[in-house]
């Protein structure tokens, strides 16, 4: 069974390995270049942290984002190209009728085939994930932001959960759809859909966020953020809380009396030189309130999301085993004849797969040739 699994998986495995090797080569190059840049801009004489950030961001923002994105796409593709055909191709080609007729129960058949491919998917994703982690470590060290949308799912342990889930999802959808291509498309759609839904609807609520009020200081405005003051009050546009996941988009400033700060209150500080203005405003005794997940929650969140995806994978696998027992393997070969005995249901053959033409040979059971009618009495 292991041999057969490997033999059938060999083609996709080699293709996948080739594609991942290309990605890996890119990551190695990226990692080496990042290390060079890191050595140049960090800790050099007269360099500030802001300079280092600027250099990293200008040089590598796109590359690092795309790499992180690739690591989320890898499990999706593995699910589509390794998982979806696993059962669907057998059902499509009818070979399940060959293999299930061997002396192996179909439960064991699925267990071995799915097990091998899930492990392969987790292993492949894990290796690429390790490499990515190594490659972008200098960038992450300077930039932080590990809760960010593309960063969180491409680092740590969550990619392994995605991989197990994606392959199980592909196999299950293949079993349900019974067609490889629709199963692949569905796998991609469901997986990527979850990648949008989980970060926005689920991940922020894994724990109740902490809501805290801070005194406004010179470093409250994070990198890439800003400070705005207008008729509707003064706001911090990107709150700086190193390592934490700030959920608020921005935060309105309040004065010591707890009232929203109007622009007239801060106008005195506005000279146009950002750093000096911030220090001036910091002296006004203002405060702001943000809700956030502290930095210490990073690993708990990683493990919770990883566990959640593993649980989903396990549920899907269980569903496959239940479904598998009930797969009526008819690829329609013993289909209902037209005008069947029930005869009252013109659309009655809809239980057949739609795109299978109904081939019926009735010729040999047609009524005997009619006796010649007698023409004269």
């Amino acid at each position, binding site marked *: 069974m292991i*041999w057969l699994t490997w033999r059938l998986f060999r083609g996709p495995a080699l293709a996948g390995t080739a594609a991942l090797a290309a990605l890996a080569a890119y990551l190695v190059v990226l990692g080496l270049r990042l290390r060079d840049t890191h050595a140049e801009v960090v800790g050099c004489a007269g360099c500030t942290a802001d300079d280092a950030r600027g250099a990293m961001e200008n040089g590598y923002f796109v590359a690092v984002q795309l790499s992180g994105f690739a690591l989320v796409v890898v499990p999706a593709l593995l699910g589509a190209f390794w998982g979806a055909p696993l059962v669907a191709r057998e059902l499509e080609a009818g070979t399940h009728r060959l293999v299930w*007729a061997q*002396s192996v*129960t179909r439960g064991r058949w699925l267990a071995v085939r799915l097990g091998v491919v899930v492990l392969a998917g987790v292993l492949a994703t894990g290796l690429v994930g390790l490499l990515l982690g190594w490659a972008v470590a200098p960038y992450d060290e300077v930039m932080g932001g590990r809760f960010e949308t593309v960063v969180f799912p491409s680092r740590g342990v969550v990619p392994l959960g995605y991989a197990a889930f994606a392959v199980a999802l592909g196999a299950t959808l293949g079993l349900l759809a019974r067609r490889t291509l629709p199963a692949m498309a569905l796998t991609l759609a469901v997986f990527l859909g979850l990648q949008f839904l989980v970060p926005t609807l689920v991940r922020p609520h894994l724990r109740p966020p902490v809501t805290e009020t801070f005194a406004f200081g010179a470093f409250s405005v994070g990198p890439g953020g800003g400070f705005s003051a207008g008729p509707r009050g003064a706001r911090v546009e990107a709150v700086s809380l190193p390592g934490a996941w700030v959920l608020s988009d921005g935060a309105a400033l309040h004065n010591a009396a707890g009232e929203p700060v109007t622009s007239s209150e801060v106008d005195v500080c506005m000279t146009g030189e950002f750093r000096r203005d911030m220090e001036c405003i910091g002296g006004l005794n203002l405060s702001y309130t943000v809700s956030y997940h502290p930095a210490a929650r990073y690993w708990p969140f990683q493990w919770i999301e990883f566990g959640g995806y593993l649980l989903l994978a396990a549920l899907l696998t269980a569903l496959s085993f239940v479904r598998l027992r009930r797969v009526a393997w008819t690829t329609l070969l013993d289909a209902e004849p037209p005008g069947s005995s029930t005869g009252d249901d013109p659309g009655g053959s809809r239980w057949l797969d739609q795109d299978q033409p109904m081939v019926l040979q009735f010729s040999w059971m047609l009524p005997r040739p009619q*006796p010649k009618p*007698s023409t004269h009495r």
Partner: protein
Amino acid sequence: MTAAIRTERLTKRYGRHPALTDVTVTVPTGRVVGLVGPNGAGKSTLLGIAAGLITPTSGEIEVLGGRPGQDTAQLARVGFVAQDTPVYGGLTVAEHLRLGAGLNPGWDAELARQRIARLGLDPARRAAKLSGGQRAQLALTLAAAKRPELLLLDEPVAALDPLARRDFLRGLMEFVAELGVGVVLSSHVLADLERVCDHLVLLAESRVLLAGDTEELLATHYRVVGPRGCADALPAGVDVVQAEHTARQSTLVVHDPGGALLRSPCDAEPVGLEDMVLAHLTRAAGAAPAPTTEEPLEARR
């Protein structure tokens, strides 16, 4: 003696559509059994259930005394070649044998190797590049080399040309002789079965119409030709399967298991296998495409 297949009110429905309805039939072991019927009669469903690949909706079935597909041991006792003889297109002939060896504890490697050699199949050839006849032979080899006690073949020759058909059936008969294996073979082409089967199960519209030893069935079916009204005079115990009338003459196909026909005034002559089967199928097809004669078919029951 344990029957090869014994069913009791076996029923399978796909949604509302019956594939098998109350099938109660016993198929003897150690024989070559033909499962005949038009497409859609339920042949594949019956064989699939017997192979443990389909779960029946209701009713009971025993194959060689066990429940189909209940465990590895039961799977090993029954060989199955599905319709269209599926094989893995990307695997070579030799890899198929390796597959068989890996998945079947009782694998007879020598038998498989010899058979492939005798067929002249190149072990390094991919199954996708085999002809239909060669694919069928490969599938049969896989099923036979697992050394089952019962071999189920679902329309194995349907897609083959006449020559390949003959070769396949010849190969099958060799197995049966060599291994003493029982065979249940389905086909909608009666001529295929006529040569090889010594027992017949006739299915139509999801029901069993007729089952029995071929010789016995032929010995109790007659064609009766006589003047009109002859049918009314047939003694009790004679089942009129088919009746055709012209103004002056009636032609009947009757089943007479009790020998009652001896007392009939009509002439009775033996009927061929094909005519016998067709008569039963025509009756089962019921009112649908009935022959249009001038007179109503009064003998139709």
